[in-house]
């Protein structure tokens, strides 16, 4: 066999003074990095296989382990960095596409970090969220042109018939992650946390496991190009339906669940044969125009008797503003947009890192376009694609989003360490895997609690920031770009975001 030119990404450092050879690391590594040498009663490591997930480091009872970037240095070259060389070595060896997981890891500009928020001083009072009510309640769905109210003399009633709405206690939902790409325990954790926090989680395109129907009221069920697990009960079980056109991590590409992950339970849920690859076509084969999309939106509305809002999810790409306008005119109640840095269980590396635009620019463009066309009220705007903290959420809403979807943050709350190897099915944290040895590692009681804790913590922070701005309702912050200023951005970027420069 020809020599592999690929070098290890990480090296394992084991402190021999601390290592007690208990072999917890050996048992916990699904990549078989650690091994026990009975002759010497020592534990050693195959560094080459380490993906840097920190499972061993976290569980080592004596803190004997550390994982470092391989210090091996290449001759410095501004154009040909070590990652580029490693990729070429790998492809020269395999002849295959580079695969990866999670969102874009390249240093493209993160606009969240170039926007700052306002706070009240002297001329307008700030509000103390501990002492005064602070409203985060958000309704997603089409809003009427105007409200007609009947006055009976002894009271008022609403004559206008409202279209179905999703009621959120916090403007953060869990984004689409399918059963198949993540484990059942991860799905259950998300469903239970969404129920506890008064928000919604999204099934992704993997259908809904029968055991999760009990959380249907907090479920957004997806209809994607593969139509996996889509049937009438599935549609009716959910609170809302979402047509998935695209995904930020891989715009223009369909999902791919390798056959190894299609276990009996997943095959039943997805309604496909066990062990077969679940390949979602790149396009919906019945949607080649806005008119076609309208037909599917209304087919779903008919099937569910106009009782549930229908969302359409697209990736943030060039011309996202007219695309979103078309989606609203096609009859969608919610437009979900997923940006360049949105995550995935598996995507070609080149697509993940190079296709699409950052969500910040997409929100600004879409909100402005829908306002200028006078149709902003006809659909809610949900932003996705890397909301890393509560400040990102506040900025997204100030830019014009009604609510946000989080997925990577949710996975991190459940234990994900962003090793980006979801596609291997060997997730040591029991999340992106169907291996029965590994899925047990995520206890849904712990997972649900940690997710609910995260949402609670973010809601406290959001209220604190809103109070500082003198805003006591998230409604007053929505699309209020005057609360944002740009730092270190050029005029073109400021114009695209529709915000002033800091100091202005």
């Amino acid at each position, binding site marked *: 066999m020809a020599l592999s030119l690929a070098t290890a990404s990480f090296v394992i450092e084991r402190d021999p003074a601390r290592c007690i050879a*208990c072999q917890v690391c050996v048992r916990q590594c699904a990549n078989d990095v650690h091994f026990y040498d009975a002759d010497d009663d020592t534990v050693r490591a195959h560094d080459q296989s380490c993906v840097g997930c920190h499972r061993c480091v976290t569980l080592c*009872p004596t803190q004997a382990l550390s994982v470092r970037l391989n210090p091996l240095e290449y001759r410095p070259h501004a154009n040909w960095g070590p990652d580029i060389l490693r990729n070429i070595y790998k492809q020269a060896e395999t002849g295959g596409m580079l695969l990866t997981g999670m969102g874009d890891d390249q240093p493209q500009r993160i606009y969240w970090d170039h926007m700052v928020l306002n706070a009240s001083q002297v001329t307008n009072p700030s509000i103390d969220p501990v002492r005064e009510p602070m409203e985060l309640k958000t309704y997603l769905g089409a809003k009427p042109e105007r409200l007609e109210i009947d006055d009976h003399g002894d009271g008022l009633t609403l004559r206008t018939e409202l279209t179905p709405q999703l009621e959120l206690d916090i403007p953060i939902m869990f984004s689409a992650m399918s059963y198949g790409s993540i484990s059942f325990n991860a799905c259950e954790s998300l469903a239970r946390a969404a129920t506890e926090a008064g928000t919604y989680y999204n099934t992704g395109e993997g259908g809904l496991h029968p055991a999760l129907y009990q959380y249907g009221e907090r479920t957004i069920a997806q209809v994607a190009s593969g139509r996996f697990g889509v049937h009438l009960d599935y549609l009716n079980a959910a609170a809302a339906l979402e047509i998935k056109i695209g995904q930020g991590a891989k715009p223009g590409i369909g999902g791919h669940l390798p056959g190894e992950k299609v276990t009996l339970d997943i095959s039943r849920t997805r309604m496909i044969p066990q062990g077969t690859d679940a390949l979602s076509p790149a396009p919906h084969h019945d949607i080649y125009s806005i008119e076609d999309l309208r037909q599917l939106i209304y087919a779903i509305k008919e099937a569910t008797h106009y009782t549930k809002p229908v969302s359409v999810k697209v990736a943030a790409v060039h011309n996202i503003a007219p695309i979103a306008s078309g989606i609203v005119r096609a009859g969608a109640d919610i437009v979900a947009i997923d940006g360049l840095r949105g995550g995935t269980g598996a995507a070609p590396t080149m697509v993940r890192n190079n296709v699409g635009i950052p969500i910040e620019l997409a929100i600004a463009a879409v909100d402005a376009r829908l306002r200028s066309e006078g149709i902003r009220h006809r659909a809610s705007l949900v932003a996705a694609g890397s909301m890393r903290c509560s400040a990102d959420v506040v900025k997204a809403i100030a830019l014009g989003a009604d609510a946000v979807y989080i997925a990577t943050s949710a996975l991190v709350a459940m234990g994900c360490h962003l090793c980006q190897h979801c596609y291997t099915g060997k997730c040591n944290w029991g999340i992106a895997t169907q291996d029965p*040895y590994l899925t*047990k590692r995520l*206890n849904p*009681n712990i997972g649900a609690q940690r997710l609910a804790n995260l949402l609670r913590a973010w809601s406290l922070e959001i209220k604190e920031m809103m109070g500082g701005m003198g805003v006591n309702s998230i409604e007053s912050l929505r699309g209020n770009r005057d609360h944002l200023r740009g730092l270190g951005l050029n005029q073109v970027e400021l114009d695209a975001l529709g915000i002033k420069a800091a100091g202005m």
Partner: protein
Amino acid sequence: MSKRIVIHEEHCIGCRLCEVHCLVQHSSSKDIIKAYGGEHSHLMPRLTVEEDGPLSFALQCRQCEEPSCVEACVSGAMHRDPLTGMIMCDEERCVGCWMCIMVCPAGAIQQNLLGTKIASKCDLCYGAELPACVAHCPNEALTFDDVAEKGAGS
């Protein structure tokens, strides 16, 4: 009602950290590095992780309602603690006849490694707030709960 270690096998990940921390808890230093250093040769955990494929769980004394070990004990070493109701082994009185090991339905009693004829079994970390195995289980596969009295192996 009494406190029992409850096994949740669906959450056991087979890492055996319970065994590690049980051993440390029953060492003289209670220091993990020292326990696995000088003392290691004669220390053993008082529970065992049983495995069959992906199924695993940590097994320790089930605190039987009608304990066979107490009935079989010739010296009165195995007894039910009058204060806590827990099954304990009075190591001063144990003569090493190993009858308890023969009759234990869970196989939760072992000979100790000192060769001093003392039956080694879970003492629920007597005196500690939580048994070490429960406190250190990373996935809450062991909990220390109030449970209604049940028979052996419950």
